[in-house]
C-alpha cells in the first residue's frame, strides 16, 4: 500500500492525541506537588541546560555516555527528517526535495550519515544491555522495545531512501550516490522490480514506528526525552548539601508521607529518571547490600504518583502509602534509614535528580509526625536536645581536652578566629588528639584564635540529616544567636560536618560566617610561611588520603588536604581507586554514625578493604567520623598496624616536633 494521507492523517491524529494526553496527565500529576521557586537566575539556568542537557556533560563523563550522546544528537537532527515525514504524510506536496540543492544536498548527506550513526549506537546499546548491562535489572523488555523502535525508524528511513534511489534516473542516481551514500549502498541490493513495494513497506513501517513511539513515550522511562531537558534547567544551582527549613506551627505537616507533599520539582525528577543506574552503582548503601537503591526511591515516587494520581486529583487520600513494605511504589523504612547522605548519587546523576533531599523528607515524616525511628536514635535525639552532644556527656566536660593547654576564650574585640572544636574534638578520646594538635599548630603559626569552651554547643548536623528538623531548628537558633551576640565572623572547624552546617545550613538562619576547614587553614599557613615545615616526616610511610563526603563532594574541598599532606611527607599521598568527587563514604554520615548496621557488608569495611589494596602504612583523613570508621574497620580486619591520622596530626609531626 502506497503512502496514503487519508489513512495516515487519522492515525497520526490519534497518536498525537494519545501522546498529548499522556504528557498532559503526567504534567498535571507533577503540578500536584508543592510550590517551589526554581525560576531564579534564568540566564544561568539556560546555560546549565545547554551544558548538561544539550552538551550532555555529565552523560559523557562515563565512557558509554558517548553512545548516548550520539543517540541524543541523532534524535535532535533527525527531528528535521521526521517532521518532514509527518507533514509529507498529511500534505504530500510538502517535501524537503523542494529545497534548493545548495541546502538540500548537504542536509541529505547529514541525515543519511546521522541515521547510520544512530543505528550503530542503538545496536551497540542493545549489545551492551545483553552482554554487560549497567546493572543486572537493566535488561528490561522496555529497554529493548524502545531500542528496537529506534532501530526500526532508522532501517525504515534507509528503506524509503534506498527504494527511491533504485527508481531514480541516471543523473539523480549519481547525485544520490554522492549525497546519500548509505542509502545508495543499500539501494544496490534492491531489485528494481520490488522497489515500489519496499518503498511502501518502509514508509508504513516508519509511520507505525513513529506512532508507536508517540503513544508509548509518555508511559515509559523514555519520558526523560521530554523531561530531562527542563530538569537540567530547573536543577538546584547551589550544591544540594543542605535541606530546606521547616516552619514549626501547630497543624503543619512535617516532612513527606504522601507523594503530593513533595515539591513539583521532586515529582519532575521522578519522571526525568532514565534508570541508568549510575546512582546505585556509587551508593554505599546499595553497594554493600542494604535495601536502599537511589534509583529505586525515585522510581517508587513515580509509581506512587501514578498509582495515587486519580484519588489525589479528586482531593482524596493516597491509596498506596509512600512509606512502607508495599513493594513497587513504596519506600521501605530500612532503605530510608540506610542513607549516609554522602551525595554520591546526586553527583553521578546525569540529569541532576536530587535523591538525598527526598530521603531526608521521608525521615522527617517518620521522626516528626510518627516518632518512629531505629531505637538507637532515641538516646541520640535526647542527648542532642538535652546536653547538646551526641553522647549526652555533661557540657562542662567540653573543655577537658584542653585542660593542660593555655587556651583563651573567644573575645569579639581581640580574637580573629573562633576554633569551633566540635563534639568529637571535645569529647571523643581519639579525636581530642586532633584538637590538641590543632591548638598547638594555631599557636605556633601565631593565629589569633579562641574557643567558646563550655558554651560551645553541637552544630546539629546529625539531627538534621536524620530528619529531626525540630531539634535541629532549636539548636541552630541557639547557636546562631550566640554567634551573633559574640560577634563571631570567622570560624575554624576540624570536622566537615560542623563545617558544612555552619557554612551552609546556618545561612538559612541569616548567619553568614567565613568558615574554614582546618585543612584549608593549615594549607594557607604553610603556603604563607607562617607555619614553617622545617623537615619532612618519614614516619607516616605510604600514606593514602580519604575524601570526607562533606568536605569533598558537598563542599568541593579536594586539594587543600592533599597539598598539605604532600608538604609534610614530601610526596603526594596515594589515592583510593574511588577518589575526589567519586570517593566512597566511610559510612558515618547522615547520622549513620550513631546507628547499627545490620544488613549486608559494613560500609567502613568496604572502604578499609579498598584502602588496604594500596598497602598503606597510614590512612589520612580530615574528619572525625571517618577517623572512627576507619579505626574500627581496621580493627575488624586485624589490620591495626595501619594507622589513621588526621591531616592536622601529620602536620603537627613536622611543624611541632
Amino acid at each position, binding site marked *: 500500500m502506497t503512502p496514503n494521507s487519508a489513512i495516515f492523517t487519522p492515525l497520526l491524529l490519534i497518536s498525537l492525541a494519545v501522546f498529548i494526553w499522556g504528557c498532559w496527565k503526567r504534567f498535571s500529576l507533577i503540578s500536584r506537588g508543592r510550590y517551589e521557586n526554581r525560576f531564579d537566575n534564568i540566564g544561568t539556568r539556560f546555560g546549565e541546560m545547554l551544558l548538561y542537557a544539550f552538551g550532555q556533560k555529565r552523560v559523557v563523563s562515563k565512557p558509554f555516555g558517548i553512545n548516548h550522546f550520539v543517540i541524543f544528537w541523532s534524535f535532535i537532527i533527525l527531528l528535521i527528517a521526521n517532521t518532514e515525514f509527518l507533514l509529507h504524510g498529511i500534505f504530500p506536496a510538502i517535501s524537503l526535495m523542494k529545497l534548493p540543492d545548495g541546502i538540500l544536498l548537504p542536509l541529505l548527506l547529514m541525515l543519511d550519515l546521522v541515521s547510520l550513526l544512530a543505528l550503530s549506537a542503538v545496536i551497540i546499546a542493545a549489545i551492551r544491555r545483553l552482554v554487560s548491562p549497567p546493572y543486572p535489572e537493566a535488561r528490561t523488555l522496555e529497554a529493548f522495545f524502545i531500542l528496537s523502535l529506534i532501530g526500526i525508524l532508522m532501517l525504515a528511513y534507509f528503506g524509503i531512501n534506498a527504494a527511491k534511489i533504485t527508481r531514480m534516473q541516471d543523473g539523480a542516481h549519481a547525485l544520490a550516490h554522492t549525497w546519500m551514500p548509505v542509502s545508495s549502498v543499500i539501494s544496490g541490493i534492491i531489485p528494481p522490480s520490488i522497489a515500489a513495494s519496499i518503498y511502501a513497506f518502509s514508509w508504513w513501517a516508519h509511520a507505525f514506528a513513529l506512532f508507536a513511539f508517540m503513544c508509548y513515550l509518555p508511559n515509559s522511562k523514555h519520558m526523560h526525552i521530554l523531561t530531562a531537558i527542563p530538569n537540567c534547567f530547573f536543577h538546584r544551582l547551589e550544591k544540594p548539601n543542605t535541606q530546606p527549613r521547616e516552619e514549626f506551627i501547630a*497543624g503543619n505537616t512535617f516532612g513527606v508521607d504522601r507523594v503530593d507533599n513533595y515539591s513539583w520539582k521532586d515529582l519532575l525528577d521522578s519522571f526525568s529518571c532514565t534508570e541508568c543506574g549510575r546512582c546505585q552503582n556509587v551508593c554505599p548503601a546499595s553497594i554493600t547490600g542494604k535495601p536502599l537503591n537511589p534509583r529505586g526511591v525515585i522510581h517508587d515516587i513515580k509509581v506512587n504518583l501514578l498509582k495515587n494520581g486519580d484519588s489525589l486529583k479528586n482531593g482524596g487520600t493516597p491509596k498506596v502509602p509512600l512509606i512502607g513494605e508495599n513493594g513497587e511504589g513504596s519506600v521501605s523504612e530500612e532503605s530510608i534509614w540506610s542513607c549516609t547522605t554522602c551525595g554520591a548519587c546526586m553527583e553521578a546523576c546525569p540529569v541532576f535528580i536530587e535523591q538525598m533531599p527526598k530521603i531526608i523528607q521521608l525521615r522527617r515524616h517518620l521522626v*516528626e*509526625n510518627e516518632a518512629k525511628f531505629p*531505637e538507637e536514635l*532515641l538516646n541520640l535525639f535526647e542527648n542532642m536536645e538535652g546536653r547538646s552532644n551526641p553522647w549526652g556527656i555533661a557540657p562542662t566536660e567540653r573543655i577537658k581536652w584542653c585542660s593542660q593547654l593555655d587556651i583563651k576564650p573567644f573575645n569579639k574585640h581581640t580574637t580573629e578566629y573562633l576554633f569551633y572544636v566540635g563534639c568529637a574534638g571535645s569529647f571523643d578520646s581519639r579525636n581530642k588528639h586532633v584538637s590538641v594538635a590543632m591548638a598547638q599548630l594555631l599557636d605556633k603559626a601565631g593565629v589569633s584564635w579562641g574557643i567558646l569552651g563550655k558554651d560551645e554547643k553541637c552544630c546539629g548536623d546529625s539531627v538534621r540529616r536524620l530528619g529531626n528538623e525540630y531539634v535541629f531548628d532549636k539548636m541552630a537558633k541557639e547557636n546562631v544567636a550566640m554567634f551573633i551576640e559574640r560577634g563571631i565572623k570567622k570560624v575554624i572547624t576540624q570536622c566537615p560536618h560542623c563545617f558544612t552546617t555552619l557554612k551552609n545550613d546556618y545561612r538559612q538562619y541569616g548567619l553568614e560566617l567565613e568558615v574554614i576547614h582546618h585543612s584549608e587553614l593549615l594549607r594557607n599557613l604553610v603556603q604563607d610561611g607562617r607555619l614553617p615545615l622545617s623537615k619532612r616526616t618519614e614516619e607516616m610511610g605510604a600514606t593514602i588520603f580519604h575524601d570526607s563526603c562533606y568536605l569533598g563532594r558537598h563542599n568541593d574541598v579536594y586539594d587543600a588536604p592533599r597539598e598539605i599532606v604532600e608538604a609534610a611527607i614530601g610526596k603526594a599521598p596515594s589515592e583510593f581507586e574511588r577518589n575526589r568527587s567519586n570517593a566512597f563514604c566511610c559510612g558515618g554520615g547522615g547520622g549513620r554514625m550513631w546507628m547499627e548496621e545490620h544488613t549486608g557488608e559494613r560500609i567502613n569495611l568496604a572502604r578499609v578493604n579498598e584502602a588496604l589494596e594500596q598497602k598503606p602504612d597510614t590512612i589520612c583523613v580530615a574528619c572525625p567520623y571517618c577517623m572512627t570508621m576507619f579505626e574500627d574497620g581496621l580493627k575488624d580486619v586485624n589490620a591495626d598496624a595501619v594507622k589513621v591520622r588526621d591531616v592536622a596530626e601529620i602536620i603537627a609531626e613536622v611543624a611541632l616536633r
Partner: protein
Amino acid sequence: MLIVVCIKQVPDTTQVQIDPVTNTLIRDGIPFIVNPYDTHALEEALRLKDRFGCKVAAISMGPPNTEGTLKKALALGVDYAILLSDRVFGGADTLATSNVLAAAIRKLNSEVDKVCLVLCGKQTIDGDTAQVGPGIASRLDYRQLTLVDKIVNLDFPANKIRVSRKLEGRHEIVEAPLPAMLTVVRELNRPRYPKVNMRLIAAEAVVEVWDNKTLKLDEQKIGLKGSPTWVSKIFSPERDKGEILGDGYADPAGTAKLLIDKLIAKDMLPL
C-alpha cells in the same frame, strides 16, 4: 478511669555541683530534666491509655518553672497536667511532699474521674529516697507495689493488677486490688519520643496550677513546717584532681608501665 503519674523536675545531676558554704545544690545555670525513672512511669501510663482508653493525668509539685516538665508530659500525650505550686509547699521533705501529692490525687479522684492507678518512678535522682511513692500510697490507703519492671496483668473488671517486682537477684510476682500505687524501674519500658505537633500544642497549652487555696491543706502538714526531716550536712566527696600520665596514644606500653610503677609506689597494686 484515671491513671495519675507523679513526675518531678530534677537538676541534670551529671552537671550538678554543691555549694560548699550552704550545703545546697547550685541550681544556677543547671538544666532541668524530667526525673528519668518518672519517664518510665509516664510511658507505662500512656501505654495503658493506648490499650484501655483510660485517661492520664500528670502531676508535679515544684516551683513555677516545673511547667516545662509538665509540658513535656503533655507533648507525650497525657490528658491533664497539673502543677502543685505554692510558696507554702516549699522546703518539703518526703512526708510533706506525699501529703500534697495525695491531696491532689484525692481531688482528681473526686472531681475528674475515679483513680485506678498511681504511677511513680522508683526514686528521684536528686533526693534518691524512694519514699514519696510509698508515702502517697500510705496517705491514700492504696496498695503499694514498688520496683515494678513489668505489669503482668491488669484486669479492670476483676479490679486486680499483677506485677513483677525487680528485687536483688530475683523477681517477685505480686497481685493487688485496685486502686494501687506502683513505683517503676527503667526495665519496665522504653519511653516514647514526642511528635512535633504534640510538642507545638503542648508549648501553647496552659498548665493548670493548684495552690494551697485549691488543696486547702493544714499548713502544719506541708512545706517546711510539715517536714520532720532535718538535713545536717550535704557534701560532694572530695576527689583529688586526676593526672594524665605519659601519652597512652603514642606509647601505650610505656604509659602502662608508668601507671603500674605509680600504683606500686602508692602501694595500691598488691604484688
